[in-house]
């Protein structure tokens, strides 16, 4: 594993020196004010905050991405979920299952995979060779992709990738496929820039 670069986040919250319940209370308050999809880095020195953040995220539905320890400071990464994320309506007609994509990878044919999750999510585990363009940047960066190629688009649950597929289709991409359910259920090869 290479040394982690600084992960790109939308908010940073300093909870160093605080003990429970304060790190969670402050995280909750900060996330209430964030937009869905944004990522927060919570810095804490209380080691108990690790299991608490994980438990809290699980119970509230926010997405726990992982934790990095640096010089005795735990940096927890969380992404605020959209209320409708889990059961979002999907509109892009062309889909591929995780298994379809896995079979394509196993066949070793050239393939383009586009991962539209946040950089922090991507860093904690992505399909080897996947291109990272967060959904929020896709509008500007679509020109990095070849509209004639077949592109498999992934996110965590198939909801952001659906939006990405629609966006690309509008731009004239012919062969984009939304991979469902996506990384939350991915059991194929995985590459991690940082360890959980």
């Amino acid at each position, binding site marked *: 594993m290479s040394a982690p670069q600084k992960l790109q986040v939308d908010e940073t919250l300093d909870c160093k020196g605080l*003990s*429970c*319940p*304060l790190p*969670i*209370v402050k995280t*909750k308050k900060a996330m209430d004010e964030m937009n869905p999809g944004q990522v927060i880095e919570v810095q804490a020195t209380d*080691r*108990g905050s690790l*299991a*608490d953040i*994980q*438990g*809290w995220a699980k*119970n509230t539905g926010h997405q726990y991405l992982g934790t990095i320890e640096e010089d005795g400071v735990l940096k927890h990464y969380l992404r605020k979920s959209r209320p409708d994320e889990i059961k979002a309506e999907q509109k892009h007609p062309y889909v591929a299952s995780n298994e379809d994509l896995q079979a394509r990878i196993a066949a070793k044919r050239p393939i383009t995979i586009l991962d539209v999750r946040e950089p922090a999510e991507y860093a904690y585990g992505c399909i080897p060779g996947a291109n990272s363009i967060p959904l929020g940047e896709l509008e500007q960066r679509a020109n990095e992709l070849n509209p004639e190629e077949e592109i498999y688009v992934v996110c965590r649950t198939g909801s952001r990738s659906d939006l990405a597929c629609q966006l690309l289709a509008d731009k004239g991409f012919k062969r984009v496929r939304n991979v469902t359910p996506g990384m939350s259920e991915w059991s194929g090869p995985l590459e991690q820039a940082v360890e959980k």
Partner: protein
Amino acid sequence: MSAAASPLQKMTAGELTRRVLSKEPLFILDVRNDSDAADWQIEGEGIELINIPYFDLLEGVDAALERLPKDGDVLVVCAKEGSSKFVGGQLVEAGRSSVYYLEGGMKAWSEHLEPVLIGRLKDGGSLYQFVRIGKGCLSYMIISEGEAAVIDAVRMTDVFHRFAAEQGAVIKHTLDTHLHADHISGGRKLAEQTGGTYWLPPKDAEEVTFDYEKLEEGNVITVGNTSIEIQPVYSPGHTIGSTSFIVDNRYLLTGDILFVESIGRPDLAGKAEDWVGDLYTTLYDRYKSLPHELIVLPAHFGKITELGEGGAVFARLGDLYKHNPGLQISAEADFRRMVSENLPEHPNSYQEIRQTNMGRIDPDEERQGQMEIGPNRCAVHDK
């Protein structure tokens, strides 16, 4: 219900210990996260406990109030105490009376030691057991004529200093029956602080970084002028060096080889296959040849039901040969199978704890406390 609720009250680990030992009913609301609460909880015959993480109660405690008994004391516990004060305060605000929080949280519970007199010795000396009720560790102090020896001391050395001083004794020897894997030994620190001698079985000490005296069979250690004898008996199985002590020809300190309701596990140094045979020989041969009148004093208890009068943990060796499930299997092959099929999870941080006890790492106090959080898990039978 017009009477104002009583304010949030504090309960110390010592007060909680007395409640557990007296088997008084007590309702506990454990507000730690699910996984920590599932790993290790406060136990007692009068204890009823529910777990609701504090972070599920940030916006109101109704979900907790619904599940509390109408009256009687409620103790809120968390890891350190902050969250229990937070939740306890909200319960009081909501009108619930008789609400307590555990001072220092589960950390303090893990560190509390309760001294219990086991018996007087022939020359007038005494043998005390220190029950670490939250974690299940047992330490011992032998006192005779102004001298003391501490066996399997836990890291809270101030408790031993204070107790010895109250008894007018100076700690001359500290002994460990083996290299511990579930808790950090206080033996070396205690000996350094008092200028005493630290004894350790040499076969468990091959990788240690410090000086120690070798505990070997036949080397009798004397406490006090009229010689309370500590006779080491080599009894491998939990570790290769595990050594038991016969004190005053009456007590058998078994370390982590033999407990009251279970036996030691042989796998914490990664050598289960090699050591299970030693364990069998110690339990079914060496110990069996000792007088069955000896009172067994182990280094752990596994279940809270093993605590007797005042919290003391002991049993007659002969009775253990009748009732302890680990001593009822005569064929070695069956014994091996029973042991390998009944190994519980490893104690938390056991590798780091062993490294600490060898002097190879030196974590700070706070980290030591974190490493020790959780049950001891040194026995084959307790899950």
